[in-house]
């Protein structure tokens, strides 16, 4: 994990803290074996529901729905998180958290999370398989609805 420096333009306090965690306690706690990171059972249970709460905007297991061209003109896609590199996700989340990265909403969400949770989330989403998640198609409301 020594090469985990990411975009180090902002040597902010949370970055320094995280690097401290990386080189000391946190990453070993995530279990580093054969190049994969594993959670303890407690961490896995904690992060699965927390990560799932991101799904309202980033899709099931980080696979946000992709735009199909028929939405309103201003419609944006929310970013896909599945299968992105852990370092990339970490740097984005820490940037939101310390305010160095511009956001409409993620600064508010990331500030409520602990650094350990951010590391767990970055690891979790980096391990998900990216798939092409289409938008769910609506249908006509049937007459029997009161």
């Amino acid at each position, binding site marked *: 994990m020594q090469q985990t420096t990411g975009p180090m333009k902002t040597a902010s306090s949370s970055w320094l803290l995280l690097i401290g965690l990386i080189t000391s306690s946190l990453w070993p706690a995530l279990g580093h074996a054969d190049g994969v990171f594993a959670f303890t059972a407690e961490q896995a249970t904690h992060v699965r529901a927390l990560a799932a709460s991101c799904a309202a905007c980033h899709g099931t297991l980080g696979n946000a729905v992709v735009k199909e061209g028929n939405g309103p003109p201003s419609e944006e896609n929310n970013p896909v998180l599945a299968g992105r590199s852990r370092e990339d996700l970490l740097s984005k989340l820490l940037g939101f958290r310390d305010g160095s990265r511009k956001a409409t909403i993620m600064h508010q969400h990331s500030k409520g999370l602990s650094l350990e949770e951010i590391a767990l989330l970055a690891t979790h989403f980096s391990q998900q398989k990216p798939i092409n998640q289409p938008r*769910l198609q609506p249908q006509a409301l049937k007459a029997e609805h009161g």
Partner: protein
Amino acid sequence: MADPLNRRTFIKAVGATGLLLASRPSLAMASKPPLGRVVIVGGGYAGATAAKYLRLWSMGSIEVIVVEANSQFVSCPMSNLVLGGSKTIHDLTFAYDALKANHGIVFRHDTVTAIDAAAKKISLLGGTLSYDRLIVAPGVDFNYQDWPMLASAEAQKQVPHAWKAGWQTVNLRRQLEAMPDGGVFVMNVPKAPYRCPPGPYERACQVASYFKQHKAKSKVIVLDANAEIISKKGLFAKVFNETYAGMIDYRPDNAITNVNLASKTVSTEFDTVKADVLNFIPPQRAGKIAQVAGLTEKDYPWCDVNFLTYESKLVPNVHVLGDSVAAGLPKSAHMATNQAKVCASAIVQILSGHLPDAAPVFANTCYSFINDNAAMHVANVYRYDAGKKMMVSAEGGGVSVSPNEKEGGYAQAWANNIWADTLS
């Protein structure tokens, strides 16, 4: 926590987080699932999400049956846009087919009449079902006790609540379309807590947005039973006073005390107002089945639960989710799905002999559209407080700086994602 992890532990741990989706739960489902059966009453945001995540996280080894009267899902979030005219109800209506097929979930389109917690059995109009764990997610029940003149389906054709999305939403839109320019739309805000705290204020904006484009001489009067705007206060106050100046007349602390159905006239302690189109949002309480099944106390119409598992504090092995829960937190769709995920995770842990997460954390967001394109949000992370034994607001939450079109796009993306997450 610190044991050295090998590949096997890794697979196990990651499996629990749902990576190993290659094995479709529907295919993996044995004839008798080894971990037991969960019956879910209600296929709204909470119930449908609980069903999906129970199947995902148990790797298909928990049997899940959802009892839901309706054959379609109609989203309350975004339904105010039907009133504004930028959406139709058919943009917000979905089948349960993908959820059933992708996850091997069984649906019974039926109504629950009773719960026998001692025997772990429920009665439906068409039979009975036994369970190992029961989830009750019925949404809100409208309390027309003090409003007998508005309780009938006939009366609600004239004065719809449109607070559960469906044909009432369409009806209200048609009334707005038929109203002549210069008319008055009157709506109320019931005393909190009610479903979707920013919803009534968003509704006022949506109707005003329609008027501004098509009937500029018309007015919106909002009679709020609460002392002030109870969600995104600063933002809504600014939109009312600036974007819709002279059109939205917001009156706090102005609970409706009487309704004359024939003349569409409502009285408050201070005013009497005649409406051309009247929208009455009734006071609310936990869904009917929660009351019938003894999940609420006599003097308090919401359900107390353990926030680690969402198990009822009154009835064992019965979990309550969504708007019926007494959480002191916004009754939102995002919140309902969060509760469902914490509950599903806990039930998987319990049925497989493990402990639930001791400190759940989740994020909640409510977007509101102020016209066809611009939206604003309130966002918060909530964290379990072991001392208070409830979910409390974590650091850093907040609202948009101002409504904007970029967030209108994100709000639509939120809807697209929560629909796909809940229903496929």
